[in-house]
């Protein structure tokens, strides 16, 4: 399984599945990180703590721990 934390900067991927628990899953959905959405990793912080992904017209910041829960596939 490839997850979002393994994706290089400036690479575009499709979200395949979200392996998060209830509330977190809902939150990810409502921020636009839904299954089938295309996202791009645009920035990672110095010690790989947080990443910023761009999707559609907005951007979301995640910790690496959360990014690991998002299964993606390369385009």
């Amino acid at each position, binding site marked *: 399984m490839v997850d979002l934390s393994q994706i290089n900067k400036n690479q575009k991927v499709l979200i395949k599945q979200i392996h998060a628990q209830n509330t977190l899953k809902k939150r990810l959905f409502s921020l636009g990180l839904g299954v089938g959405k295309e996202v791009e990793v*645009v920035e990672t*912080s110095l010690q790989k703590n947080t990443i910023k992904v761009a999707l559609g017209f907005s951007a979301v910041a995640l910790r690496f721990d959360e990014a690991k829960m998002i299964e993606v596939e390369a385009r």
Partner: protein
Amino acid sequence: MKKIVIALVGQPNVGKSHLANAISGSNLKIGNFAGVTVEKATARLSTEDFAIEFIDLPGLYSLEDFSADEKVTKDFLLTGEYDLILNVIDSTNLDRNLMLTTELMELQKKMVIALNMDDEAIKEGININSDAMSKILSIPCVRVSSKLKTNIDLLVKQILHVTKNSLVTPKLVYSDEVEEQLQTIVRFLDDKHFRSPNSLSNRQIAVGLLWQKKEIYALMHEQPLYIELQPLLNNALGHVYMYCQCDDIEEVINRQHTAFAAGLGAEVLSVSKVKNRNLTQKIDTLLIHKLFGLPIFIFLMWGLFQLTFTLGEIPMGWIEDTFGWLGETIGESITNEALKSLIVDGIIAGVGSVIMFLPNIMILFLGIALLETTGYMSRAAFLLDGFFHKFGLHGKSFVPLVTGFGCSVPAYMAARTLKNKKDRLLTMFIIGFMSCGARLPVYVLFAGAFFEESMAGNALFAIYIIGALMGLIAAKILRVTAFKGEDEPFVMEMPKYRLPSLKLLWFVVYSKSIMYIKKAGTFILLASMLIWFISSYPKNILIEEEYATKIEALQAQLEEAAPAEKTEADSEAKAIEEATANAEIKEPASIEDAIAALENEKHEKLVERTYLGIMGKAIEPAFAPLGFDWKMGVATLSGLAAKEVIVSTLGVLYSLGDEVTEEDTSLREIIASNISLASAMAFIVFVMVYLPCLAATAVFAKEAESLKYTVYLVIFTFATAWILAFITYNIVNLLA
């Protein structure tokens, strides 16, 4: 006149406050705190027949109560009393905003949609066909720009129109399969002539059941027909799961809503040119850059504190002069000694010393408002999360913590954005370490007294940084002891960079300033008078007379000193203690000095015997190891009422206790000459850490929903403050 209550709902940063501002113009009275909208803020607007009241609810991404903050909005929408939902949408991010809209539509309330930020959308080549959208949803949609105030009248007209007419059910359609199942449930409920007790329609109930909403389940569970309903429901759910090929209802709902939003977007949204849109991206490559991001952040913060000091210094001088002049002029025109003292030493000295810091406060709040409205605050959270996480904090804690630099009260409220109760409490515990605006006067006073002007800004910055670092360490300690538990996930929107409107900024700064002045005019005025009273009474005639005779005797000496070189000290002068006895020396100048010394001693003795002096002496032993004299001890205690009172208390105490001469008028100089560096540093450390004011503590108790934690907070802050101040005092003494 009929009253209409309108709930403003939207995702964060869509411009709700701005829109409320634009609609109600100068009538706006939002008790909104700098930055984050937390409390329900209301604005009023009167038209011909209606009084419209807006309730600015905290922004939320979806109707799930992820954070305490969002729960406020959800609870209000479900149970509050309002006539209409005004859903504010950011036109430049229609897709995601519609996700909330679809959920709002499921509430089956009267609704109007404001497609805000139209100006920006046009610039970015985004065009929304609002007429088509209105038709599809059966909800009036109006393109507005709260910045340029376009179409605001039309929006108000639509709001009135919808209120006057009866509810038109919003058209939210799901996929055919889901609709089919919903129909089955609705038909069943209709057949049973079911009427929900809180006037929900049967379709609403069906949707709630199928989407497994807790509230609806609780409601239906109590109904006898639930027994028959249950198998039906199971069947329906089974069908939906099978059709969607997934057995997580949240995912099903999300797909349904996404599909609806996407379908709607395809119908009404057209994007022509791709311009401008990457500006945020470009700025971000620099501002959240791996290497440069943090240094830039620190530089910006440093700049803010430099500005607070250097820029604030200029009007501060004027205000100080004005109050000095005021005191003198008024003092001259009052003959009654007691009244004169009350007004000049009590009121003017106390209130003046607080008002003086208004410019600093304004600059600080402007800075915080800028951080929030431009969108930089979430970048800072992004940059700091890794670092914060090490201390057991959350990147999002950054927002309440920075707000804490303004005032602890909104900061405690801003902590609601944290979902996890432990994270929230932990953040609230260390908010006090972020020195609030009210403590700024104390720092400015002491930094100015003990550092060169060019260094004072740096000293100020250092105080804030050290406070924040101590907070982080405290957080770590609390995290591994009192607040053990799982970490809250970090997922956060990075909003677009926006230049905030000057009006909105001015509004924030203005309302803060008014609040500060009001506080100075009422609370601090009363506190100053009280402090003046207990520091002037009871009058001690005995001491006054004793010193009066001593001074007279010396004055007589002074007069005699001119003609005769050597004069026998008369019997009364002999009675004077050592200090003055030595002053038998013949020089007139030294006799004058002796008189001044006597005057000081007199004041000292007088104040010591007042109520305040007695109190101060009683608590002195507790503060003595920190190097505080009793005046400083009293000032810290009075600071519990409000931190500004520390300065006004020092102002009153030192202006009473000392002979204020022309070249020694400012409190700053008095302090520099009366307090040692070590004591001053210990005092600053104590003020940095001990309990925020009583008002903030009350808010803490309310937000923490626990008396236990409030008591902990009091003990924790006092103990930490005392210990740290003790250490500081001794270290500085050793070094000096």
